Structure formats: structure tokens, C-alpha cells
């Protein structure tokens, strides 16, 4: 935990492990993340297992009667959510690569709004390390 002034900043991780549609988990997770972002905490997101499908490009929900909320992930940068971890093994097990996922960026206010990558590809082992550093982990 870090102290900034007298405010405690905790590290919150949101772990997404389910496909975007069919259950409400992915959308709920996204909404909670957007709400939590208002509290100036250190927030990160993980996509692992079927959760990697949440960031797939070119989603179309016309035939399933659900809102396509995938464009909202591009707004995460605006909400100062700059750390999105994708588990490498989960992609590989599904025959996917980073090219199949949205390329999420954030603009660094302190660096003349330069665009920087939010997506971090991590191995299962590296991810375990990152999880270990968190104060709070929410699993969706």
C-alpha cells in the first residue's frame, strides 16, 4: 500500500475469466471497474481463460439481443486505467494472439498526451507475481 498525503492508495485487481456474453460477469466487471476508477485507486484488469474473448476485435451482438459493450474498453484509458494484463497461455490455448484483441491505449497527461500501451502480455508465472502484489483481487 502506498500513502499519498493522508490518502491510502490500494492496489485493486479485476480478474476477468469469462466470455463476454452468455453471463453477466463481463459487463458487471466493466461497470464496477468504471465506478471504482472514480476513487483514485491503483486499478488493474486481467483477462485470463475465456476472459481474453472480452477484448476481441469486431464483436457483433445483433443476433443475441445484448448490447455490444466492447467499445467501452477503449474508454478505460480516459478513466486512468492503464494496466490491462493479458495472460499469454490463455491466448495460445485458444489459438489467439494479441492481434486478435483491441489495441488499448491511454494518453499520458504528463507527457504531452502521448499515447501509450495499456495492454501487457504476461505469462502465467508473471501474472502470479502481479496478483501477489495486489491488496484486493476481484474475480469475475
Amino acid at each position: 500500500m502506498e500513502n499519498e498525503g493522508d490518502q491510502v492508495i490500494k492496489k485493486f485487481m479485476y480478474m476477468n475469466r469469462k466470455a463476454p456474453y452468455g453471463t453477466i460477469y463481463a459487463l458487471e466487471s466493466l461497470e464496477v471497474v468504471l465506478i471504482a476508477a472514480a476513487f483514485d485507486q491503483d486499478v488493474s484488469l486481467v483477462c485470463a481463460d475465456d476472459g481474453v474473448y472480452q477484448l476481441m476485435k469486431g464483436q457483433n451482438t445483433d443476433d443475441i439481443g445484448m448490447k455490444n459493450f466492447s467499445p467501452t474498453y477503449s474508454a478505460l484509458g480516459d478513466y486512468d486505467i492503464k494496466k490491462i494484463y493479458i495472460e499469454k497461455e490463455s491466448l495460445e490455448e485458444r489459438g489467439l494472439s494479441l492481434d486478435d484483441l483491441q489495441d488499448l491505449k491511454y494518453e499520458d497527461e504528463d507527457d504531452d498526451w502521448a499515447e501509450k500501451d495499456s495492454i501487457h502480455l504476461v505469462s502465467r508465472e508473471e501474472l502470479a507475481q502481479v496478483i501477489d502484489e495486489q491488496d484486493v483481487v476481484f474475480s469475475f
Partner: protein
Amino acid sequence: MPLEVDGQSYETDEEGYLANLNDWKPELANAMAAADGAELGENHWEVINFLREYYEEYQIAPAVRVLTKAIGKKLGKDKGNSKYLYELFPYGPAKQACKYAGLPKPTGCV
């Protein structure tokens, strides 16, 4: 209570937000503002149009902090602050402007 404009009736929720995004047209924003005792000027429209574009792109209404920052970037620092936005929309920039823009209530908005 439905919103009545030019003899047409538009469905809204209990707080006056439009039920159907696609119903929106500028006349509805004017009618909602009039009901709040306000009149929309060019500065209001800048924000309303910005919100509609934001929604179109990201499928969410931005939180007020995000709105403030984005407005500052797009329309200049003198407009990207809560004082300016609260003067335009005294009931809360995100809430009131989103309502006039025909968007749902912002996620995580207080």
C-alpha cells in the same frame, strides 16, 4: 412521466432520462431545459454534442471527471474545469447534460 414535445410523447424514466436513445432530437433537449427553467446556448450545445459523440464511440456516458478532462482537451483549458461546467449545468454537468443529450445516467455518477 412522458415528455411532450410538438404533440408527440416520448417515454422517460422516473428521473426524466429518455427511455430510447434513438428518440433524441435537439428539440427534446430544449424542452427538457425549459422544464428546468433554463435556456440552452452555444456553450451548452458544445457539451451536449460532445457527450453524444462520446457515447457513440464508447457506448457509455462519461463520469464527470472524465468529461471535464476530455472537454479541456477538446475545447480548451478554460472550459475543462468543473466551475465552467457547473455554471452551464448547475444540477451536475454529467447528470444534467447527459439527460439533455438523451443518454442514460452516467455509470458511477454521483
